[in-house]
């Protein structure tokens, strides 16, 4: 049966990507390099990363988690609006952070804080966005990143177009586009992956399978055994990877980007993870999942796992972690305060970005509104 599914594309795939054929999604295998205790199980696939880079990756993940947890508490204090926690999913962004190059494009959904920061977004900007300023999703100093995208899966189409434009312009970059497991049910997902495949566009579609779309479990989204297996239908390589294993993520993303950069077309990466927090700050997970499940999945935590590896291999001294965390908290607090003290939102910012060339009608609406505001001051 497998034979009949594999078309020309996939045969080439097999040669290029041994790893992908070894972890064939049809067998529902999940690629993992280290286990929950941080012990390397697949030494031949351990990516080459210097100790320094590894420590940086670890610290970046820890920083993202610190910021994420503090964001939730700021929201609870009424200092920020709805926020989607990343808690438990940090190794996916962490892997992207290691692999993405400056000139590569990143196409966000809304739950990949670490990847935004790696691209050059600041935490202050992220806070600004969730405090309610569009300015926060401009990511001024980040190269080649699109704004946060809320309509599920819609951003994947943009990734396909970016991929086409890269080929057209003969650029040496690739596109990383993120979506959730629920998002794979949208027509936009299928359309985007198909477009990218037909165009051989250099896009790495990363599905963060955190097993829930708000309250709806993965099993109710699809009858497929996993997300990666859908790659067969589009004639592209796909793999299910342990998204809580930084090494596995880095290895897969490296291979996928090499493959895409070489002009072979897109790759579908299913990063299997667990959303340890709520869907957003307005969600209550106790309505749809058990404490037991949460505890079981907590044992796969990506940060704990990497720490265990680093400590066991004498790469990192965890005894100073409290100090590090204190320092991170201070930094998060500093950036949050800056965001909180951002200048008030002027009226003109409501108007001035809807069009490049603002129609006279719209200018008139602003003028009329300003007249009203003057009149309003005279009230009482």
């Amino acid at each position: 049966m497998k034979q009949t599914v594999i078309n020309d594309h996939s045969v080439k795939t097999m040669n290029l990507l041994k790893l992908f054929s070894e972890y064939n999604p049809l067998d529902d295998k999940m690629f993992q390099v280290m286990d929950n205790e941080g012990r390397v199980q697949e030494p031949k696939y351990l990516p080459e990363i210097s100790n320094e880079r590894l420590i940086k990756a670890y610290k970046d993940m820890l920083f993202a988690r610190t910021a994420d947890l503090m964001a939730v508490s700021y929201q609870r204090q009424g200092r920020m609006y709805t926020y989607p926690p990343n808690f438990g999913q940090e190794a996916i962004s962490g892997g992207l952070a290691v692999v993405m190059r400056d000139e590569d494009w990143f196409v966000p959904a809304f739950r990949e804080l670490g990847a935004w920061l790696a691209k050059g977004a600041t935490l202050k900007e992220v806070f600004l966005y969730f405090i309610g300023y569009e300015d926060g999703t401009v990511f001024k100093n980040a190269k080649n990143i699109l704004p946060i995208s809320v309509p599920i899966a819609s951003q994947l189409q943009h990734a396909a177009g970016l991929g086409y434009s890269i080929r057209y312009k003969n650029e040496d970059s690739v596109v990383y586009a993120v979506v959730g497991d629920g998002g794979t049910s949208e027509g936009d997902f299928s359309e985007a992956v198909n477009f990218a495949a037909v165009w051989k566009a250099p896009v790495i579609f990363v599905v963060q399978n955190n097993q829930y779309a708000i309250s709806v479990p993965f099993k109710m989204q699809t009858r497929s055994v996993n997300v990666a297996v859908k790659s067969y239908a589009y004639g592209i390589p796909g793999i299910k990877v342990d998204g809580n294993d930084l090494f596995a993520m880095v290895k897969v993303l490296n291979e996928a980007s090499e493959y895409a950069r070489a002009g072979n077309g897109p790759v579908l990466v299913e990063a299997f993870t667990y959303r340890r927090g709520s869907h957003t700050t307005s969600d209550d997970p106790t309505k749809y999942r058990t404490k037991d499940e949460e505890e079981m999945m907590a044992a796969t935590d990506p940060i704990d796992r990497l720490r265990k590896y680093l400590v066991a291999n004498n790469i990192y001294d965890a005894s100073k972690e409290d100090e590090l965390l204190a320092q991170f908290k201070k930094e998060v607090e500093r950036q949050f305060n800056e965001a909180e003290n951002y200048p008030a939102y002027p009226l003109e910012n409501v108007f001035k970005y809807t069009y490049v060339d603002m129609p006279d009608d719209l200018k008139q609406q602003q003028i009329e509104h300003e007249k009203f505001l003057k009149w309003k001051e005279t009230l009482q």
Partner: protein
Amino acid sequence: MEGDLAMKVMTMVQAINNALDIKFQEDPTIVTYGEDVGVEGGVFRVTEGLQKKYGVNRVFDSPLAESAIVGSAVGMAANGLKPIVELQFCGFVYPSYNQMISHVARFHNRSRGRYKMQMVIRFPYGGGINALEHHSESMETIYGHIPGIKVVIPSTPYDAKGLLISAIESEDPIIFMEPKRIYRAIKQEVPEEKYSIPLGKAKVLQQGTDLTLIAWGAMIREAQKAMVMAKKDGISIELIDLRSIYPIDRQTIIESVKKTGRVVIVHEEPLTFGTGAELTAIINEEAFLNLEAPVSRVAGFDTIVPLPKGEPHYIISPEKIYYHILKTMKF
């Protein structure tokens, strides 16, 4: 009428839930589904408790795909079910717009009446809740503009229940837009029993002689606040809750305008091509000679709805309505 029935204080969420409950009990061909509708009871808890009561075959979670939610309802309706589908937010309706405009609205016509599209498509809409992008829009016009679909917007728990019951019973497809800003903000005594409110009929909430104020959804409350301000100027205002975007209740509007000669229309959706433009045209057609001032529209700007820090600029305040009332009176 209300006096004779057992009453219960309800929010709009509870009133809608109650209407669904009543219809589910009555009619086994009714099903409801959408994202998070089953186990969770909807992100706003509108369908809470219904899955427990009526089972997973009648109340269920769908995969995350709006086009399929509405498109599958077409097939269900063609075979005699009466689907009530929930789309999670106004801003996420659009993947299903193709199904609405290409099929839901056309099946009856295309099949020369063989297939009726008896369904209700519900979703929360409107601003004022400090939400992320795509959670604050009001776009009733783009639904009202589709021939073949009727569009209903309640402004109170009482109306929400009565209108939803009529919507479910209507043989035409209904888009039922729920003003989420007042989902829980208004509590009202609502009869526990079944009652219905006819579709396509506006409601005169207050009689007046000087000016007709037309609004709907969450804007009714803001209009009422503006009326309190105008009262000290001695202006007698007639407040009309439109309740139905399509069909528009011409008669109620024209009768009122003939009496007052002055009109202010309030809507959250953008000004240009908004429902207010249609209302103005109707008034011009049928009461032109009665007008003593141009019809005035208080509406959203023709801009993207700003994120929460900018939304206070965008959102329509009672003062702004009052300002338009005064301008129209002084014309």
